[in-house]
């Protein structure tokens, strides 16, 4: 029987890996943003597990900072996607790699 801390860290690792796979294999730029969210969430889960392991509030403080950063990142990212969609008329991230005008 594995300990709760080990189980929580393994769950965080699995979720982070799923987010990383999705980030690598997708070409739709909204899906890439969602997979960044999956990875941030997994990192927050690891912080919460560490906080309950040591009984210290620092882990939850870090999770609140991750939450604030995710909110700011999503708003700016969606605005960038909107600009990209108006410029290129597509959500293919490979289209944006050509750097033309």
């Amino acid at each position, binding site marked *: 029987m594995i*300990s*709760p*801390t080990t*189980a*929580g860290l*393994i*769950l965080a*690792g699995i*979720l982070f*890996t*799923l*987010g*990383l*796979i*999705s980030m*690598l*294999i*997708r070409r*739709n730029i*909204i*899906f890439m*943003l*969602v997979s960044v*969210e*999956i990875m941030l*969430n997994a990192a927050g*889960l690891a912080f*919460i*597990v560490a*906080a*309950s*392991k*040591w*009984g*210290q*509030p*620092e*882990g*939850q*403080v870090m*999770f*609140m900072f991750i*939450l*604030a*950063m*995710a*909110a*700011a*990142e*999503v*708003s*700016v990212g*969606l*605005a*960038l*996607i*909107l*600009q990209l*969609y108006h410029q290129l008329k597509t959500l*293919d991230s490979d289209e944006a790699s050509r750097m033309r005008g």
Partner: protein
Amino acid sequence: MGTAFYIAAAVAILSTIMVITRYNIMHALLYFIVSLLSVAVVFYLYGAPFMAALEVIIYAGAIMVLIIFFVMMLSLGSQTAGEERSWMTPGVWIGPSILCLVLLGELVFLILQPAGPAGEVRVVEPKEVGLSLFGPYILAVELAGMLLMAGIVGAYHLGRQKKKIVHRFLQTPES
């Protein structure tokens, strides 16, 4: 702990797998909300009830609603599902998936190495979190506020529609 954790973890992993394999973006986002809710259950089991509430309110509430309304505003959905299917051929996703799974196996192996005595789950009260947040970490709180301010200004600046400038001779006469 125990059974409840494993059920919530299984739901989280399954719904995240459904997120990364869907072609329709609305289905993926709805599965992602389920994933966030099950992660909130895991937070509650690890003695962080306030963070579980924040996860539901901010992540599953605010952020996901923002993304869903954005997708509805662009009116994507079934239109992009076809091209998403054509982009996701097996040759594209097998290589990165295998490499990432190798990394995950290595990580699990390293975590499962015998370490010191395993601690029990301790409940950290929201009061302690608040005292720590506005005590030693007050500077970081202010920096997070400035980050959110920069995010708002940046989103407004980037999301603004540029006014199209047309020469007056090219304008169609208004009827």
